[in-house]
């Protein structure tokens, strides 16, 4: 059968292509790490770069400014004496992310509980696509909304010193993160078997008591995973904070002040930085940092989802 021999050759080729695709997927993530890290490396090892900035500058307190007004942590790469402390940026990222999580987590989890435990069937099928639509709003649109509309609303109510601040960006960021936490929590809650609820009801529990006391604890690893993944998304988000947070690298714990996040710093400064300069390499270092942080957070989240699955099928306590 000559045709079968031909087929064998074509078959072999097709299979090679399929396996190659999987290899490409692996190499992509490696390439990202490699090429972003490559441009960040000089900050660690290049003497030329070290003339301008070292790891010490980035992480430890420095003494800038006139005696009398010492500012230990300043990010101001473009100035006569370039200042490279990452502290204001870390703090900025933290403030915005915390604000977003404080805002989004209770809302998303409560909504997920309602959807899986109390909502009638038809409503359940209606809420999910709506939340997916929220997820589909591009972050630049949310950033625009926060910049133009939300900031003014907040200003009318609170009269902050800074119109664009961590609270403003945090709320908008929270809107972006709600769908993630909601979807994963909802999945986790629905995965809890009917029998758990039935057992609670049979003992006289009300729907709320069953949900709060039995279902939610059982689904906790999954819900927590949703929160972790939402956190990861918030940390890495760029456009919303770029447009709505004021972009001032201020080191303080005041949420009503402008902030500059790690991601926004890259976005704002890379366009104008001199290729190959110390500043350029530091920006890539920040990028590598972001990559590493979200990598770890995602890994954590995946572990927890796995734990949930195994717990519900009886493999883990």
């Amino acid at each position, binding site marked *: 059968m000559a045709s079968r021999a031909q*087929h064998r050759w074509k078959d072999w080729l097709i299979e090679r292509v399929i396996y190659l695709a999987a290899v490409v997927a692996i190499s992509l993530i490696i390439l990202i790490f490699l090429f972003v890290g490559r441009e960040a490396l000089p900050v660690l090892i290049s003497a030329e770069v070290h003339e301008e900035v070292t790891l010490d500058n980035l992480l430890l307190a420095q003494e800038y400014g006139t005696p009398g007004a010492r500012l230990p942590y300043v990010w101001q790469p473009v100035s006569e004496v370039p200042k490279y402390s990452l502290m204001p940026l870390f703090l900025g990222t933290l403030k915005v992310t915390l604000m977003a999580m404080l805002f989004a987590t209770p809302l998303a989890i409560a909504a997920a509980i309602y959807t899986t435990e109390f909502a009638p069937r038809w409503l359940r099928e209606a809420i999910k696509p709506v939340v997916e639509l929220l997820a589909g709003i591009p972050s630049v649109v949310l950033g625009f909304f926060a910049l133009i509309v939300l900031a003014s609303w907040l200003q009318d109510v609170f009269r902050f010193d800074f119109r664009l601040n961590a609270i403003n960006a945090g709320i908008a960021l929270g809107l972006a993160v709600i769908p993630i936490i909601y979807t994963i929590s909802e999945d986790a809650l629905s995965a809890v078997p009917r029998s758990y609820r039935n057992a609670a009801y049979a003992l006289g529990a009300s729907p709320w008591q069953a949900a709060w006391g039995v279902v939610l604890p059982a689904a906790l690893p999954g819900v927590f995973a949703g929160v972790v993944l939402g956190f990861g998304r918030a940390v890495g988000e760029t456009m919303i904070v770029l447009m709505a947070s004021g972009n001032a690298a201020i080191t303080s714990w005041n949420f009503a002040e402008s902030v500059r996040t790690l991601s926004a710093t890259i976005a704002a400064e890379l366009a104008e930085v001199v290729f190959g300069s110390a500043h350029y390499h530091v920006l890539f270092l920040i990028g590598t940092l972001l990559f590493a942080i979200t990598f770890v957070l995602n890994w954590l989240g995946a572990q927890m989802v796995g734990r949930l699955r195994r717990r519900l099928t009886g493999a883990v306590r």
Partner: protein
Amino acid sequence: MNLAATRDFPLLKTHIRSGEVVFEQLRLKIQVEDLTVRYGKQVAVDAVTLPIYHNLITAIIGPSGCGKSTLLRALNRMNDTIPGVVTEGRVFLDGESIYVPDCDVIALRRRVGMVFQTPNPFAKSIYDNVAYGLRINGLVRSRAETDDRVEQALRAAALWNEVKDRLGRNALQLSGGEQQRLCIARALAVQPEVLLMDEPASALDPVSTAKIEELMFKLKKNYTIVIVTHNMQQAARVSDFTAFLLSGALVEFNPTSQLFTTPADHRTEAYITGRFG
């Protein structure tokens, strides 16, 4: 007598007389010899030795989980598609062993066709369903040839008259019974020598079941048929020989009329009289 107990199949009986039923000129189509199939540590088929005779219907009966389907799937090496399955022993098709490294499994599956419990036509047209096997095996060279073979197969499955005007329609629009006959036609299109049927009528209504059984009688003239069924009445109605499997082991193998009227083993009797299911 219990043919299973004699296990002297190489010394094949070509002539069996059992009460009023006489089998003459028996030819061996498939020979199963000491076949054991395991899923990991769990044994599904336990050292079964069994003959399948040419152009006759052999039924395999037994309670659920006794290994009937696994045994059936071993005959066309469909168990190969399940990860973790270990097969030991020998199976011979026309005297040639099929569990050897250089066996062409694809060609084997053309010679030994299979029909499944739940009708599973592809989401294609009726015509394309029947033609599928022809095309992937490179058996036809022209549209006219394909048309011919499709018609032949549909006639053989007693479905031609019902679908000849709507060959282009989606196969999933057919009724359950028609879908199953379509699956039979699809299997027959590649002109197999053996047809394995895994509970072919269990998902169908009584009328469709009767049609399938009628079809089996017709097909018997040209094909060797092995049918797995949990419906004992069906086995009694339709088959020439019956094998009773219990926990993977062959308990009794005899001409059907004998097995159902005067079973040789007390376990067979217990099963067919419904003392356990």
